[in-house]
Structure formats: structure tokens, C-alpha cells
């Protein structure tokens, strides 16, 4: 009796699946923003204001989609990339995103930048059921498919990166006396939390000092002097690029040689290590998930060759040391992959479904071995990093690829 029921159920399921899949193949399905010839993609970027350096990401993505269009588009459809300036201001972000959704009628919003801006638009986009895809921020809260099924991150979260550092220290330097220098905002505090979580019960004994600075401070030399007085042997540099370079330079000037670990955000050879002085930066540790455009070790890498060919043709004169270009390229390539997987079913629901079924996808610019994986319960596409040590004029990777998935709380 039971077995017959089961057979009946299975056959019914098979019939149902067959029926749905044939209809999916038979007809094209569109939501607002998609047609036979075009996919309209919305984006907001700080092209002006305090974070305008990141505007390069938007320009890279625009150039990448131009390349895709020149190659015939995705499944025969051109990408129409509409990108507005939000000046890194949450009220402006809301205005611009509403313009994208209600006036330009985009299919979804891709790679909007900044934690405050994304927080401001998250509720709106989720209530409108418009995908907020691959947000350009490393905050941990974007991996929350249960409460925000229309929001998905892209890069590894700051907390998971910090956990990797803490775990590495626990293993390699169990008696470390750790000092943390962090930026007094969501960025720095996420790192701080990740580190404490990573140390677990040992956090209070291992961390001997937490020193914060404001992003508006012109120089952080005073903080370094203060930290040195506490005499730690490990310095965690949870800063943005400018301050990262200042920290490495100042510790060298003081003749102080603690073990230094710097955030991935500030690991750029061109904009941090070089200004800090290569001599001063020897032995600094960090973790990476993407290749550095200024690093000669990737000169013969097939992925980076494609990247350089793209830059030469579509962004001539671009600064190859700018990590934002590597970032924008990788994010845009991930989106192109998702749209390819969507086929002719360009509904908002299917875009999210396909984005949540990426399996071992490796964009050209990610480190060998780092792969993008998502599932309906895992909205953190990149969750792997590898430790690296600065030697000579470049980063040398060492150790295994470490996974640091952190569920949003």
C-alpha cells in the first residue's frame, strides 16, 4: 500500500516537473525591465562625495557590459546598464533607487555600493520584490535569505575575513598579545567583532588593546605611538587604504616590528604597499580572494590576460593598480553568468533563483581555487580567502584556501 502510494507520488511529481520544464522552454517569460532585445540593469555608485574613489567600480562595470554587448549580448539580449550617483548618502540612495525601479523600470539593482546606502534601500527593494543583487559591501548582514530573500552579497564578509586572521593566530602564534587598530564605523566594527568571535574564549586574554580612529582624521600617527606603548607583538590593521599605508610607514619609522596583519581592502600593492614603502612592508600579512592587477606573478595567468585585454580595449589609460577595477570586473562577470543561466526566463524570481544556484563559478579575477558557490540558504557568494605575506614587491600566497562562511545573525 505504502509503496504504491509512493510510486503514484513519484510519477505525479515527474509529470509535474516535465510539464513545467516544457512550458519553461516553450515560452519566454519577462518581468519589467526585460524584453527580447534588452535587459535593463540598475546601479547606484558614489561617483561624487567622500567615497568617490569607488566610482571606478561602476565605470568598470559599464565598460564590461559594453564589451558583452559588442560580443552580441547575453542570449541575444543587450545589457542596458543604468548607473546613478548617490554621493554615498542614504537619502540620495533611496531617491536614485526609486528612480531606477519606478521610472527607469529596471529588472533588478546590481552591485549598489556602501553599507549605509544598501541598508537604506534593502527594505524598499525587498517589499517591491526587486532583486538587490551582489551588493558591494562586506557587511555580514547581506547573507540573510530568510528575512531578505531579494538581497545577496558578493565579496567575502569582513567578519569572516577577521575570523580567518584570529584562527590563524590561534594556530600559529597562540601566545600573541594582540592590538587592534580599527576605523570607527561599521567597517571597522565588523572586523572587530569577527576577530573576537574568532578568538572565542581567548579573546579577552589575547586582545590587549583596541584603538579606534575616525575616517576624518588626517593622520593616525598618534594612535600608532599609543599602541606601541602598550607593547603588543601583533598589530591588526583594520583600516581603509590611506590609513593602512600610514600605519605601516609609521611602525617602521618607530623602529617597531610587530607582526602586522592588514585588511584585504587595504592590501593593494599600488595604493598601500608602495606608498608605505616596500622596505617597510616586508612580512606584512593579509588575506586575498582576488588577484592583484599590479602583481607581476599574474602576467601569464589566462584570466588576467583577458582582464588586461579588456582594459586595453574598453578602459584605455585605466590604472591597473586600482583594486576597484579588478572588483568591478569580477562582479560584472558574475552577473553575466547569472543572466546567461536565466535563459529566456527573465523574471525577477528566476534571477534570484539562478543567482542562488551558482556552483563552483570562478571569475577571471579570483585567486586560483576560490570559487563562487551559492544556494537557497547561502547568499554569500565568495566565502574563501587565502593568507598571503608581502615579500619583495608582491604578495606571496601561502597555506590553504580557507573558508569563513558566517551566517548573518
Amino acid at each position, binding site marked *: 500500500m505504502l509503496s504504491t502510494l509512493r510510486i503514484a507520488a513519484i510519477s505525479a511529481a515527474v509529470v509535474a516537473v516535465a510539464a513545467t520544464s516544457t512550458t519553461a522552454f516553450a515560452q519566454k517569460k519577462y518581468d519589467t525591465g526585460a524584453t527580447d532585445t534588452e535587459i535593463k540593469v540598475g546601479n547606484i555608485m558614489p*561617483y561624487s562625495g567622500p567615497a568617490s574613489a569607488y566610482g571606478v567600480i561602476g565605470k568598470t562595470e559599464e565598460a564590461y557590459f559594453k564589451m558583452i554587448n559588442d560580443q552580441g549580448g547575453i542570449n541575444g539580449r543587450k545589457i542596458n546598464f543604468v548607473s546613478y550617483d548617490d*554621493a*554615498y548618502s542614504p*537619502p540620495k540612495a533611496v531617491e536614485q533607487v*526609486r528612480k531606477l525601479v*519606478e*521610472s527607469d523600470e529596471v529588472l533588478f539593482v546590481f552591485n549598489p555600493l556602501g553599507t*549605509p546606502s544598501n541598508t*537604506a534601500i534593502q527594505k524598499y527593494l525587498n517589499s517591491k520584490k526587486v532583486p538587490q543583487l551582489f551588493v558591494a559591501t562586506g557587511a555580514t548582514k547581506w547573507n540573510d535569505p530568510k528575512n531578505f530573500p531579494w538581497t545577496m552579497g558578493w565579496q567575502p564578509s569582513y567578519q569572516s575575513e577577521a575570523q580567518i586572521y584570529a584562527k590563524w593566530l590561534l594556530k600559529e602564534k597562540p601566545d600573541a598579545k594582540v592590538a587592534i587598530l580599527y576605523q570607527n564605523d*561599521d567597517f571597522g566594527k565588523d572586523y572587530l567583532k569577527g576577530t573576537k568571535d574568532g578568538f572565542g574564549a581567548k579573546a579577552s586574554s589575547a586582545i590587549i588593546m583596541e584603538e579606534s580612529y575616525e575616517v576624518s582624521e588626517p593622520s593616525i600617527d598618534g594612535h600608532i605611538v599609543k599602541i606601541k606603548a602598550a607593547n603588543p607583538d601583533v598589530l591588526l590593521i583594520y583600516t581603509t587604504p590611506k590609513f593602512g599605508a600610514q600605519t605601516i610607514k609609521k611602525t617602521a619609522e618607530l623602529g617597531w616590528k610587530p607582526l602586522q596583519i592588514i585588511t584585504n581592502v587595504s592590501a593593494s600593492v599600488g595604493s598601500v604597499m608602495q606608498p608605505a614603502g616596500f622596505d617597510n612592508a616586508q612580512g606584512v600579512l593579509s588575506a586575498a580572494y582576488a588577484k592583484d592587477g599590479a602583481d607581476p606573478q599574474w602576467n601569464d595567468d589566462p584570466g588576467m590576460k583577458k582582464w588586461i585585454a579588456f582594459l586595453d580595449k574598453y578602459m584605455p589609460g585605466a590604472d591597473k593598480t586600482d583594486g576597484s577595477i579588478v572588483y568591478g570586473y569580477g562582479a560584472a562577470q558574475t552577473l553575466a553568468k547569472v543572466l546567461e543561466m536565466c535563459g529566456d526566463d527573465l523574471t525577477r524570481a528566476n534571477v534570484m533563483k539562478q543567482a542562488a544556484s551558482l556552483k563552483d563559478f570562478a571569475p577571471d579575477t579570483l585567486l586560483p581555487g576560490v570559487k563562487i558557490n551559492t544556494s537557497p540558504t547561502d547568499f554569500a557568494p565568495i566565502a574563501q580567502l587565502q593568507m598571503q605575506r608581502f615579500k619583495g614587491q608582491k604578495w606571496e600566497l601561502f597555506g590553504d584556501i580557507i573558508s569563513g562562511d558566517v551566517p548573518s545573525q
Partner: protein
Amino acid sequence: MSAAEEVVTEAPAVEAVPKRAMTLGYGTSLVVLAALVIIPLLVKNFIIFQMTMLLIYALAVLALNILTGGSGQFSLGQSAFYAVGAYTSAILMEHAGMNYALTLPIAGIICFGFGFLFGQPALRLSGVYLALATFALATAMPQLLKLGYFEHWTGGVQGLVVTKPDAPFGLPMSQDMWLYYFTLVVSIGIYIASVNLLRSRSGRAFMAIRDNEIAASAMGVDVALYKTLAFGVSAGITGVAGGLGAIAVQFVAPDGYTIQLAISLFLGMVVGGVGWLPGSIVGSAFIIFVPNIAEGISKGLSGAVFGVLLFLVIFLVPHGARQVAIVAQQLIAKLKKN
């Protein structure tokens, strides 16, 4: 600063009838009001949202106008009052579960108190020195909001997400439209109150202080009281605007209330015409739409294009929208004669 100061000191000379020059005639007022009531019925929700923001910033510009145009004091710290109002509304709505409409008067009162108290030490300062003191307030505010001590209420750097209210009594209108009309009613109320304030005894005291402090005190005006009062009223109105802004944007975060906002409001006041209350809405339109226009012209150079447009406005019509309105009025009068 000297250009702006010149505007203030010259202002009485431009106005033929000081009392009436601060407002619009009844006919014009009704036309503007009708437009503000009817347009939302015809446009998309997104435009309605923009119009809501227009009214909100207009309120904030109006508040600054009362302070600078009315009592002749400068402030680059309006963003701080705006932030306090926004956070007051957001915290009361999200943590205390209070009705959004009730949070606005509370935001107004708290900001009034804050502005009044700030006005006490500021009394000793004038002109550019006062502007700098308020500038300090504006730069300090975002960091104060991030302080760990307040984090439990403010949400720290992450900010607070605010729930948007639905239309009450089952009215068949979208959240955006309801919020727009709600904002419109509040704005009209505050506008009328402001006009009456400036026409009242207190308003005359403000203007007397603006024109000549010594003469004003000789006439028996309590200069200290009225100066702080002007600060308080201005801060209170800005606070209400901040509260409305928090509800409309559905989010408050320290990064939304930087010195940038204070400068925008100042800009809006100058473009609208210092001391001319109806100009507030023109100034507000300028700070909302002109950056978008600039971006449309050139994305990479939007800041430069904005600068050029601003320069043109200041160069061609230094007295802002008021000057345009006066010229238009004279033209119409001429046409009528003919």
C-alpha cells in the same frame, strides 16, 4: 560669506514693503497650493516621493531662512538639528512604537530646546564666528550619533530602519501619496505659522536685531532672548523636517546628516533668496534637482557642472528666486498698465 552678508544687509533696501515682501500675494499662493495638491494625483509614485523630499527640504530651508533672513544669524549647523529630529522620530517609532504623527511635535520640541540651549553660548558670537561655531556642531553630530554609549538607541553606524506608515482610515491611496499629503499639511501649517511669526511683535524684534542690534536694544528689544529664540524656532522647524525626512526615507544613519547637508540647506536658502520665505521651495528644488541635472550632463564631472550652474545662478541672480519674482512682478505690472 561676505557676499551672503551683503545680501542680508542690503535686504531691507530691496524690499519696498518689508512685511509683505516676505510672502507671496494671495493669488500666487493659491496657484502654488493648487499645483502642490493636484500634481501628485497625476504622476508616478517616484515623483511623489521626490515632491515629498522637496517639501521636507523646503521646510529645513525655511527654518534657516527665519534664522538668517529673519534675525540675521548664520548657521552651518542645520544638519545637526535635522539629524536630532530624524533620530528622535526614528527612535520613538521603532523603539517606543509611537505613532509617526505624534513623534513630529516631540522632535520639534526637543530640537527647539537643543537650538535654544545652543543659542546661549552662540550669543557671544556673530557673523563668521557664529557660522564656525555651528559648523563645529555639524561636524560633531555624525560622530556623536556613532558613540557606543547611544548605540542601543541609535543603532550606531548601522542606523535605524523606519517603517513607512500606511494611509489611515483605509483611504485608497499609496503610502507615498499619503505621506506626501501629510507632509504638505504639516508644511502649510508651519509656513503659515512662520509668516505670522515674522509679522508679529517677535518677528519685528528679529528683524530689528538683524538690521541694527544696538538700535534694537535701545528700543527695548531683549536682544539675548530673541536671538536664542530665533535659534530655537529654527532648530525646532528643522527638527520636524528631519523627522518627516526619516519617515519618507525609511532610514536614518549618521552618514546621512553630514556637513554636506548643512551646506546644501545654506545653498538652498541663498538660491531661494535670503529672507524670502516662499523662496525656500525654490531653493529646495535647486538642491534636489540640479545635482541630478548635472549628473545627466556629465557623470564624471557632475561636481564641476553643478559648480558652474551654481556660479551662474549666483552671478546672474544674486538675490535668488526673490529677484526673479520681483522682476516678474514688475513685468506683469507693466503689461497691465499697457
